[in-house]
């Protein structure tokens, strides 16, 4: 099962990177930058009622290696703090709707920090593929990014589309003490407001997870974040090792309604 999906992922990733480079390609000398780091993440999901769930997702992005590029020193530092509480409506087992207020702080422990308040709405569709789950996620974001010069928070909007695939590796269902595979690619399009490029970012991820118990999963994977870092569309490559822990507060239970 993992063979064909890994092959598809590799091919998909290659095509996406080529497309991304082609779309924002330019003549002249590239000033692309690469950084390497780690991204710890935590996710807590709980039930409000049969159809409504809540989720708290917290992560931080750390640039782990100090680098000097073209005489500019890029120290190892915490690049971003991300706090995302959201409400999820299970419209059907194959369609979930969600909304959130998200707080993001770039360079959180430095004087040049930038706060961002974000609202978003999303729809995520899930379909069975092989023995796994193919997901298509559409998200519209209203971003209020702090302008440190005047203290204002102008509105900008962004649309994100994520295609993902996850599959248990030891059977058709993911049971406790079993491994699974998870991969996705996400396209970011800046619609309105200040932007470096319309197709502004692309994230590719592949990781393996392990279900510890009935409610907890841990996952380790590689996340490549590519983003246009200036109006000249120079790119920033962020190579991250993502370590995540996801837990469910409400254990799955069956109750007799007869």
């Amino acid at each position, binding site marked *: *099962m993992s063979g064909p999906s890994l092959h598809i992922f590799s091919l998909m990733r290659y095509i996406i990177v080529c497309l991304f480079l082609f779309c924002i390609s330019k003549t002249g000398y590239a000033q692309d930058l690469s950084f390497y780091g780690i991204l710890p*993440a935590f*996710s807590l*999901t709980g*039930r409000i*009622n*049969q*159809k409504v*769930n809540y*989720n708290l*997702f917290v*992560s931080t992005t750390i640039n782990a290696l100090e680098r000097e590029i073209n005489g500019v020193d890029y120290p190892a530092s915490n690049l971003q703090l*991300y706090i*995302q509480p959201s409400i*999820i409506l*299970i419209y*059907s*087992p194959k369609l*979930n709707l*969600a909304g959130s207020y998200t707080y993001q702080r770039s360079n959180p422990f430095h004087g040049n920090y930038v706060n961002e308040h974000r609202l978003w709405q*999303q729809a*995520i569709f*899930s379909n069975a593929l092989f*023995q796994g*789950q193919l*997901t298509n*996620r559409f998200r519209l974001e209203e971003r209020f990014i702090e302008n440190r010069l005047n203290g204002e928070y102008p509105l900008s909007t962004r649309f994100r589309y994520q295609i993902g695939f*996850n599959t248990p590796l*030891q*059977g*058709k*269902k993911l*049971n*406790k003490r*079993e491994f699974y595979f*998870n991969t996705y690619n*996400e396209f970011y399009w800046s619609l309105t407001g200040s932007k470096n490029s319309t197709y502004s970012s692309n*994230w590719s991820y592949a990781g393996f997870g392990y279900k510890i118990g009935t409610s907890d999963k841990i996952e380790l994977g590689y996340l490549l974040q590519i983003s246009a870092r200036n109006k000249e569309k120079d790119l920033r490559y962020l190579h991250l090792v993502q370590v*995540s822990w*996801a837990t*469910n507060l*409400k254990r*799955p*239970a*069956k*109750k*007799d*309604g*007869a």
Partner: protein
Amino acid sequence: MNLKIISLFFFSAFLNLTVTAQEISISEKKVAVKIKAYIKENYPTATRIKYYQEVINDTIFIESEFKFRGNKYAVMFYNEALYEVEIFLAFKDIPTPAQKAIKSTLDSLFTRHKILVCQEVNPRTNLLYEITVEGTSEKSTAFWELFFTPSGRLIKKTEFIVRPIPSHF
């Protein structure tokens, strides 16, 4: 077949005792010849055949999933003997009298409902229809598994929890 084991399984499933289950996929080579022969004889044109070992309350079952004549099948074996057959089908494929009775029951249970999955369980021996629905009653909506007899009489109704589709960042 070991009747004691089967009785215990049905008792636990129908009276809602805690059932622990764990399944893993297994290669065809590890499946007993008798089981493979049964599939070949009874479902000669079966395609996409997969095998799983399922452990339910310390009892080992072998399950085979495949496509046969346009429908998805799940056939379970215990001690190399047939234990349970499930056929996924469309609601419209259920015989009309049973279909009408089931629909009438769903209308009486829910103000609004949508049939998500429909299965025939043990069609050759002790036929039951297992229907998964999203149903609304008294302003709350939930997901249910309902079991009906061949005549369309409801014998069990169980609510089940649907977890959100994983989505981070």
